[in-house]
């Protein structure tokens, strides 16, 4: 079966600096992949290379077996949705209007008939239905993040890329967002999430990719990747990996 995202030897440069260095990975439909790594390791850059936003200095990215360059802008927006870190909205659009914008790639297509239902469902899944008529710019950081997530959900794409969706969220909403990401994957989407919290990644991701100074330092299941031998040199910090008593999944703690 064709991978949803196929990245081969992907390299991204900014001037002389190499931001992503020959990264090769596949993300399958039905899979949740977490991208982790220290600040500045190139996680967001890799994500923007996978989404088609950044030009590659080398390598190849294919979505559903087609190189990114072969996708029309509109078709690409129906294939993959992206949640960026910074979610600002100019002018006083309401939450509903913002989420409805996620439907725009489907305009003038049969799927547009489902717009209202999809918008309502997306608002509910991101737990922002109670904010529907609020103006986006009046929301708190966490509320904005969840509304933006609802916008991404409304796009209804087989590939979903989330760049630190939990950065501004309390622990309950962090859990909910990851549970949501996993349910998207279970429903058949390929989901890539950039995240800092390793234990959160361990609890929800099928596989984890660890980036270290622009390179892929590890790629595998949480148990395979979240081991001190791999993490300690990457983060430059002593870590202790213990088992969650309930799930048996790894929990990563710094040695203090």
């Amino acid at each position, binding site marked *: 079966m064709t991978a949803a995202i196929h990245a081969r030897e992907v390299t991204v440069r900014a001037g002389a600096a190499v931001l992503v260095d020959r990264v090769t990975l596949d993300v399958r439909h039905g899979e949740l992949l977490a991208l982790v790594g220290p600040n500045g390791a190139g996680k967001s850059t890799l994500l923007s290379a996978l989404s088609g936003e950044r030009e590659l200095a080398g390598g190849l990215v294919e979505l559903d077996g087609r190189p990114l360059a072969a996708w029309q802008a509109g078709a690409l927006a129906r294939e993959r949705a*992206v949640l960026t870190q910074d979610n600002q909205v100019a002018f006083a*659009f309401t939450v509903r209007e913002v989420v409805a914008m*996620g439907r725009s790639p489907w305009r003038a297509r049969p799927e547009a008939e489902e717009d209202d239902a999809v918008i309502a469902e997306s608002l509910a899944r991101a737990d922002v239905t109670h904010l529907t008529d609020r103006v986006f710019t009046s929301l708190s950081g966490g509320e904005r993040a969840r509304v933006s997530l609802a916008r991404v959900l409304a796009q209804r794409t087989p590939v979903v890329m989330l760049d630190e969706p939990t950065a501004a969220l309390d622990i309950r909403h962090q859990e909910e967002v990851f549970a949501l990401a996993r349910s998207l994957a279970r429903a058949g989407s390929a989901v890539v999430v950039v995240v800092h919290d390793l234990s959160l990644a361990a609890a929800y991701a099928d596989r984890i990719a660890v980036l270290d100074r622009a390179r892929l330092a590890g790629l595998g299941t949480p148990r395979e990747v979240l081991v001190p031998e791999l993490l300690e040199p990457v983060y430059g910090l002593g870590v202790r990996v213990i088992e969650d008593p309930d799930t048996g999944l790894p929990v990563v703690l710094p040695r203090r």
Partner: protein
Amino acid sequence: MSARGRRAPVVGLALLAVLAVGVLLSAAVGQLAIAPTEVVGAALEGMGIHTSWAPGSDVTSQALWQIRFPRVVMSVLVGAALAVAGAVMQAIFGNPLAEPGVVGVSSGAALGAAFAIVTGAALGSVASVAAFAFAGGVGVTLLVYAMARANGRTEVVTLLLTGIAVNAFAGAGLALLLFLGDAAAREQIVFWQLGSLNGTRWPEVAVVAVLAVIGIAVAAALAPRYDLLALGERTAAHLGVRVERLRIVSILVVAVLTGAAVAYAGIIAFVGLVVPHVMRLALGPAHRALLLASALGGAVLLTYADVAARTLVTGAELPIGLLTSLVGGPFFFWLLRRQRSRSGGWA
């Protein structure tokens, strides 16, 4: 649909009604007072419908068709074009303070017009002045676009400072042309700059009408993409908008609309700032309704401003640009303060 969305038809109809009254009023008042019924009668007669309301005298009929009607139509077109140009500018810069006048587009047009007046004595017709004003407006729009952007985004401060720089440069050019020109040219430049709809003729109305209709239609067609642009360039691109192409087309739309409006009517500032802002307060920021309402609102504003310009002082006509700036200046200041307090200072 939101409560604001349902308001759009009501606001649209209200604006149309206010505009109809304004048009009637504008055609009726002046040195030769004409009854509103006669205005309607003359308009119908021109369209081949004879009614009992038709003006009794040929003088009245001629005054309406040769002087008043072209002027009224021009005020509607110029107002609509300027307001839509402002709304588009704000959409592409993602900033309610962006307005063709504020960032120096109008002064570029003035420079073009002055150049034509001073140098083109041989061909100093209305048409050549208009053509140069248009070229100046378009040129400066492109210049502002190129200068105000850095790393794919535009900051408020950069935008306003670019406006200062462009205005200063255009001001220097204008001063030089005033210095070089003879007394008649100077007078022509000064009055051109003040803005006036006086002496509008049908061929000029036709030119502006074509450009305004095309510009407004293109802007309305792009409206859904402007909404997405409010999410930021990156997210808009992720949603399938070709942002750079949208920007360039939009800049051309702004240039055509502003250039067309300013070419014959002179500098009429702040319409593009005040009107879209008021419409945004009434209807929300969704651009399809906003652009169309701005067109109507701009038409209303200029129609009434023109009536005021002709009637406030008996026996003389105030420059219409003076009136719009008189209202627009304080409004701009208020908007600036409001924006500033909202964002907690300038970034």
